């Protein structure tokens, strides 16, 4: 069970789309899981043949549970000497079981503190997946298992979604020392270019301002790559590819920011096609696992709601979020005179562990530069 969010702990396996013996290739969808953020399609990340299906649909399974094994192309079928370690279901979907009093499990490898907590909380250690060295069960594993075995009242999708957002944003606020910068960008050239382009296009081929903003961010990140990546294990892990987490309003529920993969390589038309593909799927709960996990930076645009300036909360383990407000006509000083220009406020929320304000300012300057030459985006 892959982790599909900063604080995802478990998900319900809903359906297999493959069976043992099926050939799969990287990117194929092999299963569907129900998370707090909706139904997600699980992709496979290697080519091969499905060897064993180890989890049954309908079970809530913790992150890290082995769902299936896949044999590489040309590899012989493995001889299973001992069964793979499979964390059993924490609870069936439709029924809640009372907590099980832990029985002594001398063969389970667990820390003394984990054993004490398991005894107190009634957690069966044989059913807990250890995340410590060599698979040793630690106290955190027990606490997580206890939290998930508690009887939970069914939540509406909007409530589950808020809970997932709350967990990720609380973690962000707790762990990430944010700094914030803002700049005003004259959008005359970008909007003029866009208007000319759209005048030549039919409705279904028109571009939105959003694609210019996404591409400009992706291009500006080439100048300041420290803002594109993750903060993991006290280190910045810069990423070459820009997978832009594009915030999409789910109407009554909230915002979700699935990744537009390789935004730096896509043309504006390809980015527009990606938006046409992504938004309906996000709203109907048909996102893919990689779209929830791969974003290297988040882009939020609240201009349509009339917001002028926004300072976002970074989605961990990312290290930056770029925010855009509405384009509004404002007085603009130029060559000693005041003129009226369409102006956009761009903001950067960044992780101070990964960068400082100087690099952040250089990024916003690069972003401004890119939007002054839209024909080169």
């Amino acid at each position: 069970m892959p982790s599909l969010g900063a604080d995802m702990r478990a998900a319900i396996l809903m359906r297999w789309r493959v069976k043992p013996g099926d050939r799969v290739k990287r990117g194929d969808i092999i299963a569907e899981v129900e998370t707090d953020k909706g139904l997600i399609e699980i992709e496979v990340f290697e080519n091969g043949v499905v060897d064993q299906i180890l989890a049954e649909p309908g079970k809530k399974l913790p992150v890290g549970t082995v769902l299936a094994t896949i044999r590489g192309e040309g590899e012989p079928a493995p001889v299973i000497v001992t069964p793979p370690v499979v964390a059993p279901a924490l609870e069936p979907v439709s029924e809640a079981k009372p907590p099980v009093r832990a029985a002594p499990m001398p063969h389970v490898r667990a820390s003394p503190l984990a054993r004490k907590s398991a005894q107190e909380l009634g957690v069966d250690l044989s059913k807990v997946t250890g995340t410590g060295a060599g698979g040793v069960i630690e106290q955190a594993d027990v606490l997580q298992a206890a939290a998930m075995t508690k009887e939970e009242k069914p939540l509406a999708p909007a409530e589950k979604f808020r809970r997932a957002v709350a967990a990720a944003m609380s973690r962000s606020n707790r762990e990430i020392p944010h700094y914030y910068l803002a700049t005003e960008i004259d959008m005359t050239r970008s909007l003029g270019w866009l208007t000319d382009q759209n005048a030549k296009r039919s409705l279904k081929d028109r571009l939105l301002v959003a694609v210019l903003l996404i591409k400009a961010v992706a291009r500006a990140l080439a100048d300041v790559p420290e803002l594109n990546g993750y903060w993991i294990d006290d280190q910045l892990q810069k990423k070459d590819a820009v997978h832009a987490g594009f915030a999409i309003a789910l109407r009554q529920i909230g915002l979700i920011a699935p990744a537009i993969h390789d935004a730096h390589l896509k043309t504006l038309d390809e980015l527009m096609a990606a938006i046409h593909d992504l938004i309906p799927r996000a709203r109907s709960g048909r996102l893919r696992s990689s779209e929830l996990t791969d974003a290297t930076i988040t882009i939020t645009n609240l201009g349509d709601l009339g917001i002028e300036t926004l300072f976002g909360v970074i989605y961990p383990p990312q290290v930056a979020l770029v925010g855009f407000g509405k384009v509004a006509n404002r007085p603009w000083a130029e060559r000693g005179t005041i003129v009226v220009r369409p102006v956009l406020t761009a903001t950067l929320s960044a992780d101070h562990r990964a960068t400082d304000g100087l690099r952040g300012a250089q990024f916003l300057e690069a972003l401004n530069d890119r939007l002054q030459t839209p024909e080169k985006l």
Partner: protein
Amino acid sequence: MSDAEIKRAIFDGLRKIAPESDPESLALDANVRKTLDIDSYDFLNLLIGLNEKLGVEVPEQDYGKLRSLKEMLDYFSARIGESTTK
């Protein structure tokens, strides 16, 4: 095409992009995008859908003429009228 058919096409389009809403309860002069929380993407999709149903291609410079239900009805009625009299 009658005004009632144009209205139905607009309502159908609005229900598709804002399924939780009741477009028929909209005041004629209310700002449709603000009232139904319709962003640029949804608005573009509304126009693409109306183009398919009504055969009217709305140029970008006319977006500002489509703020309220009344403006939409007037606009599409006039544009359809133009094409049928040509």
